C-alpha cells in the first residue's frame, strides 16, 4: 500500500506575483467562478454584519483581545499547556514545519496506521503535512468538501475558507467521476452536477473513511488558555466526525490561536461566522478539553507550532497579522484576489492577508527573501477594502507598505537598480522647486510627440521600456501640457492677469 500513497502539489517554485497573475488572468472560467463566488459571499457578509448595531465595537473587542494574547503570549501558552495536560491531553512544541510533521508521523506510526482523516486546516496546509505523511507511507484523507475537491483534483487550494472556489460544479463533477474510484468509493453512475448530487457523492465517499479511521488530524480555530479547551468551527459536520469518531486525535495549532478565557469566545463566535461564510452562526462548533473517558478520542495530542510566528511577533508593525482568525473576508472583498484568484500568491495564504502573512512567516524581517516572496507586498493597489472588512481590524495596507519598505529600504528583496535610480532621480527633482520647474519644461517639449493631445502606443516591447512601456501597453495618456500649473500661476498671478 505504501507505494501507492500519492504526494500533493506544492506552491514551492511558483513565479513572482505579476508573472503568476498574468497566467491566471487569462483563465476566463476561473475569472467568472471567482467573480460570482466573491460577490455572493460579499453580499451575504454585508447583510449579516449590518444586522449588528455593535459590529464596530465587536471588531475593537476582537482586536483588543488578540493584542492582549500577543503581548503576553508565553504566559498564555504555558497556562494552556498545564490545562491540557491536566485534562489528559499530551502537549508537544514544534519550532517549525519539519518538527511538527515529524511529531504527527511518529504518533501515526506508533498507532500502526497507514491512513488518517483530516479536518480542513490552514496550518497543516502551511506545513505541507500531507506530503510528509505521504513520504512516510500514510494516506491523509481530506474530509472537507472543497478540500476533497482540491485533493482529488491534484490541485492547490486557492482560498482560505473555500479552497476550491476557483472550480465550478461541472468541473467538480468531472473530478469526482475521474478520481474518486482510485482512492475509495467511486462516484455513482450518472452523477450530475446538481449540488445535492455532488454532496451526496462526497458524503458516501467519505463515510467509509470516517468509519475506518483510527487517527484524525485537525487544526483549531481557538484554544482557551484558562481551560485547555480547543475549538473547531465548521459548516459540514465532517469536522465533528473526525473530532469524535477516531481513537486518536492530533491537533496542530499555531501559537497565535490562543484566547485567554472562555468568555472571549463570545466575541469571536460572533465575528468569525459573519465575516467568513456570512452566517449568523456556523452550523457546527466543536469544543473539547483533553480526554473524556468513554466519550470521543481517548488519546489527544496538541502540537503548538511556531514556524516563524515568533519572528512576526517581534515586528511592532507586522505583528498585527497574527490577530488573523482566517475568516477570509479580506479575500472576498479584494479586487486583486477577485481577478487573479489564490494560486497567483504562491502560498496557502492567498489574498491580502497572505500578502502580509506569507513574507513574514518566510522571515522577511530577518533576512533576504526570494523574488516570489518579495513580490507579495506589492500585489495590492492599497485600496483598503480589506482593512474595512477585517473582523480584527488588521490594517493590511499599513503592513503592506511596511513590508515594501523592508523589501526596498531594508534590502530584503531582489535589487532593482533601475527602479532605485529612477526613484532617486524623482526624489532629487522634487527636492527643489526649480528642479521640478525644469522637468516640467522638458515634459512640455515631450508633448510635441503627442497626436491630438493623446499619447498612444509606444512601439517598443514592454521589456525594453520598463514602467513606461507597461503603462502604454494597454493605456493611452494625455500629453503633458505646454505650461505647468506653477508657470501659469507665476505668469498670470494666479489667473488675475490672464
Amino acid at each position, binding site marked *: 500500500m505504501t507505494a501507492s500513497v500519492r504526494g500533493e502539489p506544492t506552491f514551492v517554485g511558483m513565479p513572482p506575483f*505579476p508573472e503568476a*497573475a*498574468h497566467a491566471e*488572468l487569462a483563465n476566463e472560467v476561473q475569472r467568472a467562478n471567482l467573480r460570482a463566488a466573491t460577490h455572493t459571499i460579499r453580499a451575504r457578509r454585508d447583510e449579516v454584519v449590518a444586522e449588528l448595531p455593535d459590529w464596530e465595537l465587536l471588531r475593537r473587542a476582537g482586536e483588543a483581545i488578540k493584542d492582549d494574547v500577543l503581548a503576553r503570549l508565553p504566559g498564555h501558552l504555558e497556562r494552556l499547556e498545564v490545562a491540557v495536560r491536566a485534562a489528559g491531553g499530551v502537549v508537544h512544541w514544534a519550532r517549525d514545519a519539519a518538527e511538527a510533521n515529524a511529531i504527527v508521523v511518529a504518533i501515526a506510526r506508533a498507532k500502526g496506521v497507514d491512513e488518517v482523516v483530516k479536518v480542513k486546516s490552514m496550518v497543516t496546509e502551511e506545513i505541507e503535512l500531507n506530503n510528509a505523511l505521504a513520504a512516510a507511507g500514510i494516506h491523509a484523507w481530506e474530509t472537507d468538501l472543497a478540500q476533497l475537491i482540491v485533493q482529488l483534483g491534484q490541485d492547490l487550494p486557492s482560498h482560505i475558507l473555500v479552497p476550491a472556489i476557483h472550480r465550478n460544479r461541472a468541473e467538480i463533477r468531472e473530478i469526482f467521476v475521474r478520481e474518486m474510484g482510485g482512492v475509495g468509493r467511486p462516484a455513482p453512475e450518472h452523477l450530475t452536477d446538481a449540488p445535492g448530487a455532488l454532496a451526496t457523492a462526497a458524503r458516501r465517499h467519505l463515510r467509509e473513511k470516517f468509519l475506518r479511521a483510527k487517527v484524525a488530524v485537525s487544526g483549531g480555530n481557538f484554544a482557551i488558555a484558562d481551560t485547555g479547551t480547543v475549538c473547531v468551527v465548521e459548516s459540514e459536520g465532517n469536522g465533528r466526525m473526525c473530532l469524535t469518531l477516531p481513537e486518536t486525535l492530533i491537533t496542530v495549532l499555531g501559537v497565535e490561536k490562543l484566547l485567554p478565557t472562555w468568555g472571549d469566545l463570545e466575541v469571536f463566535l460572533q465575528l468569525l461566522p459573519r465575516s467568513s461564510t456570512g452566517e449568523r452562526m456556523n452550523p457546527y462548533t466543536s469544543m473539547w478539553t483533553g480526554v473524556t473517558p468513554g466519550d470521543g478520542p481517548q488519546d489527544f495530542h496538541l502540537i503548538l507550532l511556531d514556524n516563524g510566528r515568533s519572528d512576526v511577533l517581534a515586528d511592532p508593525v507586522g505583528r498585527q497579522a497574527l490577530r488573523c482568525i482566517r475568516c477570509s473576508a479580506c479575500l472576498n472583498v479584494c*479586487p*486583486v484576489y477577485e*481577478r487573479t484568484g489564490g494560486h497567483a500568491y504562491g502560498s496557502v495564504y492567498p489574498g491580502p492577508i497572505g500578502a502580509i502573512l506569507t513574507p513574514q512567516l518566510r522571515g522577511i524581517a530577518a533576512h533576504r527573501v526570494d523574488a516570489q516572496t518579495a513580490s507579495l*507586498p*506589492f*500585489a*495590492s*493597489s*492599497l*485600496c*483598503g*477594502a480589506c*482593512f*474595512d472588512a477585517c473582523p480584527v481590524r488588521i490594517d493590511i495596507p499599513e503592513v503592506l*507598505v511596511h513590508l515594501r*519598505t*523592508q*523589501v*526596498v*529600504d531594508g534590502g530584503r528583496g531582489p535589487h532593482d537598480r533601475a527602479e532605485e535610480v529612477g*526613484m*532617486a532621480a*524623482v*526624489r532629487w527633482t*522634487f*527636492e527643489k*522647486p526649480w528642479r*521640478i520647474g525644469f*522637468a*516640467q519644461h522638458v*515634459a512640455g517639449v515631450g508633448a510635441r510627440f503627442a*497626436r*491630438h*493631445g*493623446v499619447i*498612444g502606443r509606444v512601439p517598443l516591447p514592454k521589456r525594453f521600456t*520598463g*514602467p513606461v512601456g*507597461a*503603462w502604454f*501597453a*494597454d*493605456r*493611452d*495618456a*494625455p500629453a*503633458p*501640457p*505646454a*505650461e*505647468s*500649473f506653477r508657470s*501659469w*500661476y507665476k505668469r498670470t498671478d*494666479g*489667473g488675475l492677469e490672464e
Partner: protein
Amino acid sequence: MRLALFVTCFNDTLFPETGKSVVRVLRRLGHEVEFPYGQVCCGQMHFNSGYRKDAVPLVRSFVDAFEGYDAVVVPSGSCTAMVREYHASVAREAGGSLPAGVARVAPKVYEFSEFLVDVLGITDVGAYFPHSVAYHPTCHSLRLLRVGDRPTRLLRAVRGLTLVDLPRADECCGFGGTFAVKNVDTSVAMGDDKVSAALESGAQVLCAGDNSCLTHIGGLMSRHHAGIRVLHLADILACTEALPDVPPYAPAPDRAGFAAGQAPGPEVAR
C-alpha cells in the same frame, strides 16, 4: 483665513487645468488662494513603493512650504491622505523637528470636497454643467479620508447636471500608484471593469477627486475608444453658464474624447 493650494506634483505637471479650476471656484466663492512656490510633492509614490527614506525630504519640504497657513486645499484624495495619515509616521522615524512640524501642518490639510463642505460650509458653488455624470469614489477618498457623500452633494447642486449611479462604485479602479506598472495585467483587468461600470451607468462623464486614478481609467477609455470621458470634480465645479467649458490646454481629441482637464462642450455632448 490664509489659504494655500497644494496642487500636487501630478496636477502641477500633467493637469494644470484642475489647479486653475480650484482657484476659479474659490475665487467665485470670495476666497483667494495662495500658491506657495516651495511646494513640490507629498512623497506618496516613494512611501508606498518602499522608498521611505526618499520620502523624508519631501515631507520636510511640504511642512516648510505650508507652515503658517490656516488651511491647505488639495485637489486629490490620495495626496491628502498621504499627508494626514502617513506624514506623521515618516516624520517619527526621521526625528528632529519634523514630527512637531507635521503635527502643526497636517491637520490643516483638506481634500477639495472636504474644504468646500466642511470648512466653507458650502454645497452649491454656483456651477453649471449640463451633462450626465457618474461619480467614482477613489479608494483613498472613500476609505482613508471618509469623504462620504460630500462630492456627490456638491455635484447634485450643480445646475443642469444629472448625477447617475455608478455600478460597483466602491471597487478600486486598479491604478494604485506604481501598482499600475508593477502589476500591469491585474491593474488593467481592474480598470477595464471600472470602464465597463462607467459605460453601464450611461453617463457622459466619469468624475472623481483624483486625476491619478482618472489618468488610468481615462487611458483605458481612450485606448478602447469607449466614448466616455473623465473629469476631475474641480473641473466640473469650475464650469458656469458664462464659462461652460474649461479652456483646453491641448488640442481637441480626435477619438473617444480623452483630453484631461477638458470638459465636453455643448457641441460635443448630446
